[in-house]
């Protein structure tokens, strides 16, 4: 009896550091950590397997993508009333693979049918940075940016022999390029009794994402599409970056420290003051909350930014807009009616809708001014606090 107690105590003492580490990471990146569960044996790819049923889920909230607005009337009508969606994520890994399972409710089961032109399948995608974000700068949530490419794993419910599964590399809106260099085993099944989908992604711990997947803490984000509401492409719900935590691995503290701003402890600021500052400084270019005087497309719409962007990113966007440059959609979406037409009558682009310019060696520079010298640190906090609440 006595010896047994000693052994138990001893064992829990051994476990303590990693438990503490887990608690600390979770506290630092509050609400954004997904603890991965290790496994000694093969991991089942059957989502109803008891091993999966017994795995603790992490709830993730996905918000309608509002930064850019596309041109499908029906999808946009649905977007105006779209609500956030909660998905359950479970992550398990062994020595050779990491498996991510996502379950989400979707009563309007929808698959893209052959011979139909206006049906859209429900879809899910995972996004991971291609390179490990050592310095804590994670890629833009909108499928990466010119400096920070992402890997995308996509599954779509399609009535064909094989479900539509594809992997892509991307550096921002419009840059999605299919690749065979990312391998994964994927499944996506509708569970009637659950009233939703269960999707599984088995990623090998080798290959292009080797460094990322083998680190103790790495970013992942999720996207879901409701086909019935004509969602596809940019019309989707997305999560902010979350972080998969592998307890037995070393955690990059620099990343944690940098990204903990506004997550570990609430930002000390004044929301009212933040709103006032945003109204006077930002709404000439951005649409946000009730401030909609600027046309859609002059700059990213910030109305849903709090749900999809981390506070550290929001702060950085205001202080150093060049760090991550968001790409605008095709410039020809807005042409200048009064501008000089070319020999064949084509109107020139309206440059007010251009978000960046190209510098030396093709480096992108944002058309947004830096507010570092304009806002005091206190004011900056208030602005970020206001943005954080725009969901």
């Amino acid at each position, binding site marked *: 009896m006595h010896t047994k107690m000693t052994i138990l105590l001893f064992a829990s003492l051994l476990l303590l550091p990693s438990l503490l580490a887990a608690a600390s990471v979770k506290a630092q990146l509050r609400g954004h950590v997904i603890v991965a569960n290790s496994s000694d044996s093969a991991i089942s790819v059957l989502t109803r397997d008891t091993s999966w049923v017994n795995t603790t889920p992490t709830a993730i909230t996905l918000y309608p993508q509002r930064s850019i607005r*596309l*041109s*499908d*009337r*029906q999808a*946009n009508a649905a977007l105006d009333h779209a609500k956030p969606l909660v998905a359950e994520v479970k992550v398990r890994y062994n020595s050779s693979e990491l498996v991510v399972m996502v379950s989400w409710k979707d009563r309007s089961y929808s698959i*893209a049918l*052959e*011979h*139909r*032109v*206006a049906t859209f399948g429900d879809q899910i995608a995972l996004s991971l940075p291609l390179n490990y974000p050592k310095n804590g700068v994670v890629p833009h949530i909108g499928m990466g940016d010119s400096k920070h490419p992402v890997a995308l794993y996509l599954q779509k419910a*399609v009535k064909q022999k094989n479900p*539509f599964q594809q992997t892509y590399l991307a550096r921002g*809106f*419009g*840059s*999605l*390029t*299919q690749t065979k260099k990312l391998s994964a085993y994927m499944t996506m099944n509708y569970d009637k009794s659950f009233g939703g989908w269960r999707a599984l992604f088995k990623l090998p711990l080798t290959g292009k994402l080797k460094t990322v997947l083998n680190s103790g803490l790495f970013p992942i984000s999720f996207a879901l599409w409701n086909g019935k509401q004509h969602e*596809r*492409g*940019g019309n989707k719900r997305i999560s902010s970056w979350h972080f998969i935590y592998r307890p037995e691995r070393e955690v990059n503290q620099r990343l944690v420290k940098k990204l903990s701003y506004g997550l570990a402890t609430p930002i000390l600021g004044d929301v009212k003051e933040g709103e006032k500052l945003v109204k006077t400084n930002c709404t000439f270019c951005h649409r946000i909350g009730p401030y909609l005087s600027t*046309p859609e*497309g002059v700059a990213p719409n910030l109305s849903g930014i709090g749900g999809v962007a981390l506070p550290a990113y929001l702060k950085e966007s205001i202080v150093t807009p060049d760090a991550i440059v968001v790409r605008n*959609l*095709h410039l*020809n*979406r*807005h*042409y*200048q*009616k009064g501008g000089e037409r*070319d*020999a*064949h*009558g*084509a*109107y020139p682009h*309206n440059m007010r809708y251009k978000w960046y310019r190209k510098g030396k060696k093709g480096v992108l520079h944002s058309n947004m001014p830096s507010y570092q010298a304009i806002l005091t640190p206190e004011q900056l906090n208030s602005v970020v606090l206001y943005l954080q609440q725009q969901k």
Partner: protein
Amino acid sequence: MSKRQLAMVMDLNKCIGCQTCTVACKTQWTNRNGRDYMYWNNVESRPGAGYPNKWEEFGGGFDQQGNLRDGEIPTRSKGYGDPWDFNHEELLHGDDFKNKSGVPAVGPNWDEEVGEGQFPNSNFFYLPRICNHCANPACLAACPSGAIFKRDQDGVVLVDLDRCKGQRLCIASCPYKKVYFNTKLFKAEKCILCFPRIEKGLAPACADQCVGRIRFVGYLDDKEGQVYKLVHKYKVALPLHADYGTVPNIYYVPPLKGPPKFDGDGKPIEGSERIPLSYLESLFGPDTKAALKRLESEIEQRKQGKGSELLDMLIAFKRDDMFRLGKEREI
């Protein structure tokens, strides 16, 4: 946007609605591989719903300020039309109509020659339509994948199938509904103005095979070409729905007045409009009146035995002059 722009003029006064262009295009490009339902070229009867059904109601194009407008995608069942099996028992032996696939409600060319008004005062004309290869293409602007491009050498608008993700925003935004969804490849496809033929000095199949010789093809900056003359010199060829803001490059010579209407006693009503000018203006814009006036005055001139370069062109006496592709025919 492009260095040069190829354009087509269609003389609606000569179109007999034979659908040879439609068939030429279909057999060349769209009779297989998920394109079976598409008509890159169609000939619709106007006034009428057109193809796809009521295509003018789907939105798209650009607004008055030059911003892309939202649009909708037609469906197979209500827009393009689903194929159906004819009930041969009914057709041949007068049996009851018992169509298994239901009673079809629309189809390509569904309201052919229905037109408007009651005999003897009814009217209609044919309107052949292909992609307008616009100078400001809404499909290109709408594509979030950057998959649609406009060729520099001739302004032909094409889809890069490798980049296309099948999101169909081009279909929603094209106000002419001339981009289609390939239901087998899950990609967008459209009229390519027969660019492989153009590159060999051949006119697009629809124009080449047109029995009525209604189609002229050439570069808009080629001042010796008939396309230039019809569009810019005589200003009798007008774009369809320029109000959609995409600066289209298919031009139409609007239909002439036609015979007057008849009263209850079967007597012609002096000065009556069989095809109302307002209707033509709703399609071809405010310049319609001037274009028709020009045509009428040239006809008058000709009646008096004077020459008319314009009518000589429209009569298409020399077929080879209708197509100026800046290249000898290679075939």
